[in-house]
């Protein structure tokens, strides 16, 4: 179980570029706000560079450098400027509060955004627990990675604020409550590649499963 920050192994996989896109997104969103983890990733990227240096080297074609120069000379593409738009907004095309949320039961709403990540098997869902709202007690099936996008929630183990990172598994039994005056919105990745519909849809919701 990981709470508040991603563990070293996840950050290692991130720095190596080996995570699925939804997992990379969760880490990236966390890094945006967490200088502690940014610094850990910096070190891990340095490790990647050192490892690359210690591998065998493969000689290159003789004319390769010239063709790179030719490509540089023909291209006028300027250095890319970092985008100001948040990754999340870019992905969803709207503010998280303005999405077509589906009310599920009581204080809980969900939105499945798996189709934003074509070609991968994990299920990705946004969940909203209304300010002050309670979700029924539940446990988790398989592993579930969650990042808090807005507001905060609390359970028996503590309070989870905006940009906190949580990995839960079937050992974790909790009963989250949205704390503070904002709706609590989270993004979760469900490892079990199940697709349920109809009355079982609500089983996908980590708040109420």
């Amino acid at each position, binding site marked *: 179980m990981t709470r508040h920050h991603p563990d070293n192994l996840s950050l290692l996989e991130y720095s190596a570029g*080996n995570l699925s896109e939804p997992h990379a997104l969760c880490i990236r969103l966390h890094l945006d706000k967490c200088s502690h983890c940014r610094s850990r990733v910096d070190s891990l990227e340095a490790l990647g560079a050192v490892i690359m240096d210690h591998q065998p080297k493969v000689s290159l074609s003789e004319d390769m450098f010239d063709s790179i120069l030719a490509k540089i000379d023909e291209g006028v593409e300027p250095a*890319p400027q970092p985008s100001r738009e948040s990754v999340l907004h870019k992905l969803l095309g709207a503010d998280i509060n303005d999405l077509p949320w589906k009310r599920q039961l009581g204080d809980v709403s969900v939105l499945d955004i798996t189709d934003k990540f074509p070609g991968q098997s994990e299920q990705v869902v946004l969940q909203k627990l209304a300010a002050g709202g309670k979700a029924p007690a539940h446990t988790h099936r398989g592993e579930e990675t969650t990042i808090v996008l807005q507001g905060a929630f609390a359970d028996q183990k503590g309070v989870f604020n905006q940009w906190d990172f949580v990995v839960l598994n079937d050992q974790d039994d909790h009963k989250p409550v949205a704390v503070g005056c904002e709706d609590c919105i989270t993004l979760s990745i469900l490892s079990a590649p199940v697709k349920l519909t109809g009355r079982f849809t609500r089983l996908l919701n980590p708040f109420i499963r």
Partner: protein
Amino acid sequence: MMSVIRSNHVNVKERPVATLDKKQANSEGPKDPWSRLLEKVGKHQDREAFHALFEHFGPQIKYFAMANGLSSHAEELVQEVFVSIWRRSCLYDWRKAAASTWIFTIARNQRIDMLRKMQRTSAEMNVETEDLWQVPGDNEDEPVTSLHRLMSERRIRESLGQLSEEQTTVIAKVYMENKSHQRVADELNIPLGTVKSRVRLALNKLKVILQDQNA
């Protein structure tokens, strides 16, 4: 080329990390020769410096591409990486990363990008590779942060030899072959828990995650 690297190592040993104070780190400019060359490319579009970087890092990146299963596109990846290095070099800041680290992240991103393009279906994601994988830069120009980075890179380089062969193999597979811990476990026919503990032990030995970062 190799002599340059060795002399750099000697340098590091001669000057214990503890004596490298903030002022020095700031005033002496980039310490390693590759970072210095990359700065020249960024500031003056220096093609000689660019060629030296190509000679040193090109063969590494070609191996990286091949280890990632991109054998038939290995040189294409090297080309993409160097065009990208040239175009982005003006953004390079030695205080934020050593040239080797900066180039590694470009190679990694281009590899992700290439695999993504190869697997592209009709449906596309509306975020770019960089949006997901590029670590957001620190806005502050804190000398402590810069110094910290310089030190951690050196420490990793110096302590890599302390790893057991098993630990090196696991780490190399994760970084060079685009393999998750689970896939490494499957391939080496060992439990996932063993892979994870080897990685954890290796990171501890390398002091990648520095104690003082938590303070």
